[in-house]
């Protein structure tokens, strides 16, 4: 790392998603985070003020900051996932702001897929509702490493500790049945700013950190699987030039684990092994590389390797599973419903193949968290457990072990649309 990188450029990147409807104060919370970290510029503020007046509102409506499309502003709803950015001296943040109205599941799943953390908002006045259960379930299904339950609008319940404790214990009931790793609880008022960036003076009973402190300090270094080296080959780099007549590099992004020059790697599907000769990133030659870096790897031996193949290490940790029959939790995204027995294009890492939906085991009721083995139809926003059969072997890990090699999407062969997201069980 150069001197420049160890100086003030030494910031981590944290991606988080927010769940909750406008009524929970989600937009106000995001507005507060952006505003207090000075990520809202004067001309944006002026544009919001102009738009607030036009839509007949009296106060400046921070929600207008996140509603980017004309249709959204007209209807006062959010249609699509919007990405927001802010930074503090410690971290750069990417917010995937997911709408709470229509197509909720589809959008939250999308925003959650790359998130380190999920902020789930609960209105202190209403307590835990069906939607809290739904949000917590999706966060656990997508294996978001950190969940922060923000009990909002504490100012409207006189900052009472028992309200907060009741909600905390109700969410614990839900999360104890789900596979969630790290759940935190913060009592806040996004409107007034209590415990968002600054500590509240009205909740002495709360000894935990503020939301911003959590976002800035929680440990995200272990969010990526550091044990199992996986490099799906993305692009074969062969300059065939005078300076590099024999260079043959495998370009790709390390999905998990670490790689050192000299390591023995195995190539899937051929099963051949070789040693790492070089790891290149532009003119830098690296001794080691790790997820999530994009690098180019040269091997000692000439092996036939192409896009869709995967370099893995056998030494420690798990080996990927190689198979054609997989169990998947599938979230359906399209208006055209899923066809049991239907054929779709499957994309996982850099591999692409066809697959067939062989059978549907059950549909998940995401409000009650019960399995329904009788209702097997998947419409938009439904989550079902299915068995897939692929046309050629897939190299994968279970999603719980590795979010990058355990995830897939299905593509409709006639419309080319991405119709489903899958997590391999």
């Amino acid at each position: 790392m150069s001197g420049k990188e160890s100086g003030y450029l030494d910031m981590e990147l944290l991606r988080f998603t927010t769940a909750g409807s406008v009524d929970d104060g989600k937009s106000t919370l995001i507005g507060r985070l952006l505003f207090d970290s000075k990520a809202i510029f004067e001309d944006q503020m002026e544009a919001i003020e102009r738009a607030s007046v036009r839509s007949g509102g009296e106060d400046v409506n921070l929600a207008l900051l996140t509603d980017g499309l004309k249709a959204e502003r007209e209807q006062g709803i959010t249609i699509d996932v919007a990405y927001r950015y802010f930074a503090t001296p410690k971290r750069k943040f990417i917010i995937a702001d997911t709408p709470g109205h229509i197509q909720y599941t589809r959008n939250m799943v999308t925003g959650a897929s790359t998130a380190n953390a999920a902020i789930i908002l609960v209105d202190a006045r209403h307590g835990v509702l069906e939607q809290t259960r739904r949000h917590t379930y999706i966060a656990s299904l997508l294996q978001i490493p950190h969940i922060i339950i923000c009990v909002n609008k504490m100012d409207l319940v006189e900052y009472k500790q028992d309200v907060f404790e009741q909600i905390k214990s109700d969410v614990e009931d839900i999360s104890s049945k789900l596979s969630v790793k790290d759940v935190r609880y913060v009592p806040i008022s996004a409107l007034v700013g209590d415990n968002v960036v600054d500590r509240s003076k009205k909740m002495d009973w709360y000894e935990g950190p503020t939301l911003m402190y959590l976002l800035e300090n929680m440990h995200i270094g272990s969010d990526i699987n550091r044990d199992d080296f996986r490099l799906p080959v993305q692009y074969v780099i062969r300059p065939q030039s005078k300076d590099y007549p024999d260079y043959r590099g495998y370009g790709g992004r390390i999905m998990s684990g670490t790689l050192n020059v000299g390591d023995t790697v195995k190539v899937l599907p051929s099963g051949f092994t070789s040693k790492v000769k070089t790891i290149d990133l532009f003119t830098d030659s690296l001794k080691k590389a790790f997820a999530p870096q994009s690098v180019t790897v040269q091997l000692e031996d000439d092996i036939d390797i192409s896009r869709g193949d995967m370099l893995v290490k056998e030494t420690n940790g798990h080996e990927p599973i190689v198979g054609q029959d997989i169990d998947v939790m599938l979230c359906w995204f399209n208006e055209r419903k899923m066809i049991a027995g239907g054929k779709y294009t499957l994309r996982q890492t850099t591999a692409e193949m066809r697959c067939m939906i062989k059978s549907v085991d059950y549909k998940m009721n995401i409000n009650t968290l019960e399995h329904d083995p009788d209702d097997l139809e998947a419409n938009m926003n439904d989550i079902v457990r299915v068995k897939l059969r692929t046309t050629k072997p897939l190299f994968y890990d279970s999603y719980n072990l590795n979010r990058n090699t355990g995830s897939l999407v299905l593509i409709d062969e006639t419309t080319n649309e991405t119709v489903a997201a899958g997590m391999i069980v």
Partner: protein
Amino acid sequence: MDKYQINHLRELEAESIFVIREVAAQFENPVMLFSGGKDSIVMFHLARKAFWPAKVPFPLMHIDTGHNFPETIEYRDNLMEKTGARCIVKYVQDTIDQGKAVEETGVNASRNKMQTITLLDALEQEKFDAAMGGGRRDEEKARAKERFFSHRDEFGQWDPKNQRPELWNLFNGKKNMGEHFRVFPISNWTEMDVWQYIYMEEIELPSLYFTHKREVFQRDGVWMAKAPFMQLKEGEKLELRDVRCRTIGDVTCTGVSLSTANNLQDIIQEVAATRVTERGGRADDKRSESAMEDRKREGYF
């Protein structure tokens, strides 16, 4: 930060390189749009990193409005010579001469909107099936909803309400004949990230980004540069000032800012302290609340 972590700029870099390689792998005939502005310069730098030691496996394309700052063109030609990359140049003037577009009139006349026609024509002529652009989601609210891989119909139009979901590292570039994709490899970068990265990587920039003396005039609170095709309104007068460009676009719609920043660290300080978005100086966005969305729907960058 432990030894198995990279900073935010390296993570953004890794993501962008992944996206650029994905374009090269998934499309038959991609192109990278190049304007000579800092975002496209960074994007091209990332492309060189993605394929090194091989050359970038696709051409660049510049849509030339004819209203450029001459420094931009000079920088572009030097860069291509140095890197051995190929840059196709398409002229808005040709579009006008062919009668496909009519020049706007009046003092605020701009060729900004006409670029779309030239761009769509060029994509069709050259049979490009993916065009990478340096758009960033933090620039403007319609762009905040843009995908990395953005599908365009056979008329080059964007349908923001019917975008494909994009999850994990999985990008779907499948399309029918005649359709194409716009791809935005630096979607997740902010203005600050771009400047910090330029500093970290020591990337050379056009001189316009650094302070220089220039004849300028004020219009609607924005400083504009003097140019042969710019008409002054009554009451507007030229002054010699120390200025620099915060973004580089067409002379007709790119404001300059009063600044004495002559190095990257000063610019980063200035960006950190500034209270107006960089597009705040862009007259093309001020036309209406949804100016950017409307232009994007039609097929703008």
